[in-house]
């Protein structure tokens, strides 16, 4: 099993979620995140005083998938989260040792 984590622009979330559902993914976890990459932050001006805001709002999407689906899920997110402009985010995949469904106690792929 793999954990696919994507950091995306907040307003791309709905598109990504719908595409993942269409692909057949049955669940995901979404959290608000802040950060910067090459995009860096932006500047805001309050009463003439300029502040650089480094950590800009992002959304983190986490999806647990079977090994064979990992590549395709990354592609689905890539296609729907991409605007081509700076600040589109990152996607990464890491191996997962075990997954347990809390309600039933099922392990492994059964629990996805």
């Amino acid at each position, binding site marked *: 099993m793999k954990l696919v984590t994507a950091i995306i622009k907040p307003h791309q979330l709905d598109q990504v979620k719908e595409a993942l559902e269409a692909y057949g993914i049955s669940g995901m976890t979404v959290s608000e995140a802040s950060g910067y990459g090459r995009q860096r932050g932006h500047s805001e*001006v309050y*009463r*003439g005083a*300029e502040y*650089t805001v480094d950590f800009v709002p992002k959304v983190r999407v986490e999806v647990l998938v079977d090994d064979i689906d990992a590549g395709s899920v990354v592609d689905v997110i890539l296609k729907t989260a991409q605007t081509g402009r700076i600040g589109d985010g990152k996607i990464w995949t890491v191996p997962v040792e075990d997954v347990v469904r809390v309600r039933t106690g099922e392990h492994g792929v059964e629990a996805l």
Partner: protein
Amino acid sequence: MEIALDSGDTAWVLISAALVLLMTPGLALFYGGMVRSKSVLNMMMMSFGALGVVSILWVLYGFSMTFGSSKGGLVGDPTEYFGLSGLFGDRLLGYLDDTVETVPGIPALVFVAFQAVFAIITVALISGAIADRAKFSTWLVFAGIWATVVYFPVAHWVFSFDGYVSEAGGWIANTLGAIDFAGGTAVHINAGAAGLALALVLGKRVGFGREAMRPHNLPLVMLGAGLLWFGWFGFNAGSALAANGLAGLTFVNTLGATAAASLAWLIVEKVRDGHGTSLGAASGVVAGLVAITPSCSAVTPLGALALGAVAGALCALAVGLKFRFGYDDSLDVVGVHLVGGLVGTIGIGFLADPGAAAGAEGLLFGGGVDLLVKQTVGALAVLAFSFVATSVIGLALEKTIGFRLEKEAEMAGIDLQEHAESGYDISGVSGGRFGSSGAVTTAPSAKTPEGASA
């Protein structure tokens, strides 16, 4: 002459008093939204604290110090109306052995109520200069001492006209003859100079000029600005002390000058920074309100538009001075209230139109420099007295009971330290439960603030 109770005037002044009272909670929102989320409650509590302390002092001796028989034009007799004695019942405004001409037909206690709310908001205004870093208990002590030593005497100078409550009043109103209709000197220059003094006494916030100290809730700021504007109609038009044409003129001028100042601030921002901001619009509103406060009886509606535009633009530029000179006037009490108050008070010397209610002639209307000199003397006298007296009070409190919060507590957040509260609980995962055990304290102490060592 015989004075008769006028129920229309009385009703308007009562309503105006309530309108002006609402300005202080409005100011709490205006200021509260501008600080960081960890100090929103303390910022608001400084205004609510002023409501408590100053109201009580006003009843005890504040009114008497402001409107009692004058000691040389400098201060009223604090014992004359102690506890408001002698003002109950049907006593109307006007000196008892009245020989002077016109005095509004309102009960003396209605005037007491109306003037009380001016004292409260003047003290509350100062708090914006010392955001995030003043011990709350010391602030309350300061509020009482400052009202007594600075506000009551200065309000006596400016607001106590001969024959209104006592035979002889204050020197700026009667001897100098400067025009300050609703408090450009006594309220705004006074609070602005005091704010500058306290900002210098307490020093800069940790991280000032280095960290981003963004306003945490601009909708609160906008709501506060709206309530201030609403209440300010009572402040200015209520100062007519009558429901008449003068109230109408001051009302319209309060509308026009404020609108012009808000737009002028936005234009300065657009040209200088590239964007017109909501904080700029709200700040411009307050700058315009401040500037029209002393002048609303002396200028025509066209003059009010000009004065407002000048005030909005100048204040938009003045708020940058603190970074150049390195004083942490956190929420720009100097840039908005001191500068705006000076623009309004001295602006009368230029823009006073004999066609307006006050009938005074400014420099641009053929009156020469006479009025300009009077206005400048009045403004600078209040500025100097307030700055010096506030510096002494502030330093004395800092050396004795301590005024500045400990550094660690300030960094952890003054709300937790001084009030054991948090302004917002949005996440819902703070893991709280009812009651306390020996394992946790209800609030971090100054010595060991949680998280400060991390």
